[in-house]
């Protein structure tokens, strides 16, 4: 029995080592992660204090933002399709809800080189678990800064708020959660619509190996988003779209935009006549 267990353990460790050498996965994260969500949030918070939250101004009541998840760059084909769409005048900005890259520096660099000037097309990024592999947070922070922040859109008559969260580690952590609670408490009433972006999807719409927020955290978030009438929570992580409506809040999990996947799509998130509307744009 003991010999069998030893053999299984050896095969498991060898398999981890071999797959770790050849893939874009960092299996060390099973045991140890070089950055924790609380320390990432502290860094994001410090960044936010120096770089004020962005305010976009539009001269019409209706506008559209593009949203993508799980690009896993490496490949840039699908990202560039979305980027070309984002450059069209009907689109105000684009948002990427994590798993932008593999976490490797060369992929971060390839992505950074493709990004347009913020003045040309405003963009908003946040980390997913893959972005954190290979100590990727250091590179994300160096290139893009905060992963927990908000931005606002001012139309001629009203304002909407968009909140971006760091859930790459499967939890928001107590500090980020306190920040989110305080933000909703102090600011929600000043805005018409409130949209939250986060990487890790909330509900288990299908059986996968990917992690969701632990049930105690999920319960707090469901209650919070219900209380403050958050219109929509947009997530990725699961790679397959799912729409769960719960009270006044729509929980939307997006398809992956990764190159080579059959269901690749991004989201056209619109504000039309004051209401939040959306449409998936399939990559052909």
């Amino acid at each position, binding site marked *: 029995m003991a010999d069998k267990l030893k053999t299984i353990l050896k095969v498991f460790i060898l398999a981890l080592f071999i797959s770790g050498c050849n893939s874009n*996965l*960092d*299996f060390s*994260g*099973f*045991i*140890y*992660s070089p950055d*924790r*969500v609380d320390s990432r949030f502290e860094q994001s918070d410090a960044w936010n204090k120096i770089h004020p939250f962005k305010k976009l101004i539009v001269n019409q009541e209706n506008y559209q933002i593009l949203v993508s998840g799980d690009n896993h760059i490496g490949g840039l084909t699908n990202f560039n399709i979305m980027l070309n769409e984002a450059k069209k005048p009907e689109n105000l900005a684009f948002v990427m809800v994590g798993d932008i890259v593999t976490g490797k520096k060369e992929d971060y660099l390839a992505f950074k080189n493709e990004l347009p000037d913020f003045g040309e097309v405003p963009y908003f990024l946040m980390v997913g*678990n893959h972005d*954190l*592999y290979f100590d990727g947070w250091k590179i994300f922070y160096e290139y893009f800064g905060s992963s927990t922040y908000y931005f606002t859109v001012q139309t001629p008559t009203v304002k909407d708020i968009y909140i971006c969260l760091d859930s*790459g*580690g*499967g*939890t*928001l*952590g*107590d500090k980020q*959660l*306190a920040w989110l609670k305080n933000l909703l408490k102090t600011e929600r009433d000043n805005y018409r619509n409130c949209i939250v972006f986060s990487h*890790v999807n909330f*509900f*288990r719409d299908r*059986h*996968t*190996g*990917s*992690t*969701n*927020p*632990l*049930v*105690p*955290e999920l*319960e*707090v978030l*469901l*209650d919070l988003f*219900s*209380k403050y009438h958050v219109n929509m929570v947009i997530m990725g992580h699961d790679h397959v779209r799912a729409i*769960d*409506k*719960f*009270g*006044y809040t729509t*929980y939307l999990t997006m398809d992956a935009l990764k190159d080579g996947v059959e269901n690749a799509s991004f989201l056209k998130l619109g504000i039309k006549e004051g209401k939040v509307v959306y449409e998936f744009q399939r990559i052909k």
Partner: protein
Amino acid sequence: MISNLNNINKSLKISILLFIICFPISFHNVVFSQISADSYAEVGSNAVSQGVYGDFSVQLLGRFGSFSANTGGLMSFSNARENIFAAYSFVVSNDFLILKKKINIGSFYLWKPFSTDLREYNFGLLAYSRIKHFGYTLGFNSRIYSFTRAAIARNNFADTIKTSVWEPVNFMYKLSFYHQFNPKLNFEASITNYDRYFILQETNPMILTKLSYYLNSKLQFYSELGYMQAGLLNMHVNYFGIYFRGGAVWRIN
């Protein structure tokens, strides 16, 4: 009027709960051959508790031959919670002999009023078997998050608005290692995704350890330590929370 109705509803629910909890005691000589009470106090801290929280649980177990029923409630005290009453559970199970192996198969119901407006309902099946030093529990639960009727009325939700989310199947597991230091002192370490009053998603395993001391045939003391982490299967582990509990099991008859 609505407030009065709510009060009546609450009273009715509490009465039903008390009846369910007290029924086995009142009729234990008739229905059950053995009745036990299990009570514990827990302190812990996690990413959502806003500091240290304290829990208190009472469970009653009735056994009649191979059949057993277990019911209990949890009270929770923390800065983050709106409700003190945190959970109610009811479990029935029976021992079966399958392929010459004793397997305990049970079904359960778990109700959690996790905020003023929202509830979590769970029901499911679990099967448990033990071979010497190892125990295996496998099963599944079905989970519903739902608004209360009072919240639906207060929010003026139209009929077209969904007020519940259903996760049909979530696998439950508990793999345990047992060690007996001596006939009075036992140790158990488990990897699991559930504990008495919560069920995590199948992708969020946690570690649970238990040390039991049998004072005599009527009284057992135990302590448990639970360690929870997030993001294991994201391959980016983050500490989530820890709790410690101390309790006693008393065989009433």
